[in-house]
């Protein structure tokens, strides 16, 4: 998937702020970004990657974890698509459209992986094994989107949810079988872009309107316990020890702290 260079400066960091934001929020930028890691992949991995899928109880645990990743990605897909309607400008709408396609792809590759692991009806399996805390998170996220609260919804979606997924997927990928590892690594690359958008968008808004900070702190407080519950369940399902849970919790909190929200 070779893309032509866009008609902007070679180094995006040489652009002024407005031109930079226009560039990184564009479809053209998305196109160039995904080119490297999606080209030649089928459902998120190289077709020639060796299948070292786990067996027995370990396989069942992996299926359960992937099912809950699907719950998170469904929340992200529905959240991002709803955010397009309330985005404050067309640049943000176009970025969110690229995010919608990313989230849809994540859901598709994860469902495909679950199917590869021998599950006949992955969607039914996801519904059966969905974590209560993640479902509650999704419910609250969609409430924020429906209430048209742009700052709170983008905070819940592109900072809290994406930071949680980023931390968990990155950690899981390190210890996963080769196919799952490639699938997760590709997703993590997208999440980095989504978090960047959220941090940038909210960073500017918090600077211009510091009075929104207490409202966002309240959203964080409300969602934190759901995030920590989901983390604990995933760590347990993956068979990781408590130190990893603490490390992931710190990684998640670190993303939120970058916006000045301390635990």
């Amino acid at each position: 998937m070779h893309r032509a260079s866009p008609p902007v400066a070679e180094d995006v960091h040489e652009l002024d702020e407005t031109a930079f934001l226009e560039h990184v929020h564009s479809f053209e930028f998305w196109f160039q970004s995904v080119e490297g890691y999606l080209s030649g992949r089928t459902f998120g991995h190289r077709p020639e990657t060796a299948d070292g899928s786990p067996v027995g109880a370990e396989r069942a645990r992996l299926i359960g974890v992937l099912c809950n990743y699907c719950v998170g990605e469904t929340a992200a897909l529905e959240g991002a698509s709803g955010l397009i309607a309330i985005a404050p400008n067309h640049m943000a709408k176009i970025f969110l459209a690229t995010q919608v396609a990313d989230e849809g792809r994540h859901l598709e590759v994860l469902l495909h992986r679950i199917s590869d692991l021998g599950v006949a009806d992955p969607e039914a399996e996801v519904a059966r094994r969905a974590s209560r805390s993640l479902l509650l998170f999704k419910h609250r996220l969609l409430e924020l989107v429906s209430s048209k609260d742009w700052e709170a919804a983008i905070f819940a979606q592109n900072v809290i949810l994406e930071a949680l997924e980023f931390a968990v997927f990155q950690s899981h990928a390190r210890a996963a079988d080769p196919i799952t590892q490639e699938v997760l690594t590709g997703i993590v690359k997208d999440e980095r872009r989504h978090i960047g958008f959220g941090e940038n968008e909210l960073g500017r808004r918090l600077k211009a309107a510091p009075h929104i900070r207490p409202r966002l702190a309240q959203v964080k407080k409300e969602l934190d316990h759901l995030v920590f519950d989901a983390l604990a369940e995933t760590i347990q399902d993956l068979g990781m020890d408590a130190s990893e849970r603490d490390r992931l919790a710190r990684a998640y909190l670190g993303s939120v702290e970058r916006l000045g929200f301390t635990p």
Partner: protein
Amino acid sequence: MADFLAAYSIQNWLESCPQGYLEDTEFGHTPGESEPEEMLANEVLRQEAVRSTVQLVVGERCALAASSGLINAAPDEGSKRFLATQTLDEARHVEVFTQRLLDLGVRKNDLESVISAHANPNLVKFAEVLLEKVDKKDFIAGVVGQNIVLEGMAFSVFEMMHALNQAMNPKFAHTLAGTIADERRHIGFGENRIGSLIKEHPERKADVEQMQKEMSYYMLATFADAFRNNPAEAEFEKIEQRLQAKGIHAKYNGVDLTSMAPEQMEAVLADTVLKEFKTRLGRIGIEYQSPQRP
């Protein structure tokens, strides 16, 4: 249904669109291509290109709002994922047509005011009828309005514009070719997915038919505004005469657009779109309703 939706997967989309017909393009056209000097130098033609491109931006903004809004109303995961690809397609269309406005000399700071000033009120009404259904999370009406009526209209309009621009403006013709390929996929999904839902919910037919009739009227009114009393008509005639002298023709649905008066072109376009509506709606079990003629 699962098998049909597999054809509309994101994997298929990635292979056919970004890794297929959009490969080696920049804002939908071959890198380095530009708008024709003759048009940029002729203020009447340039203004007309701005006005017509604004309608494309307005239509695509509506399509972006509708496709993203329908994701949360979709009754199954496969449809949500297809609509995720459509959302990105529509965003790309907004971007490439907005870029064309900039290429035509519209200043960035003036974009929104130029769009507001030139947006056809009938096209805005057309969009409002559809987005009202989307806001109500009415998936059946939303998909018929979006993927059959709006996309059907866009498909035929783009094809006609493509025929007219192929010889005169390869850059714009290339941009249109990519959007036509996208619209074909969107229409296919609409027909395939909604047919079964209409069978399950026959009580929804009357409401959907009323929406089609209303949207069709606003579409025809938009066409009328675009073709009748066009300020660039005299300039178009000169270009058509030059093309004919060179033996170049703009073929569309078996007619030569270069030898037609604007009213004739309007009639060809309207008949083509309405005939397509009738065929496609018939396939999904909806009875086509003839709109009033503006």
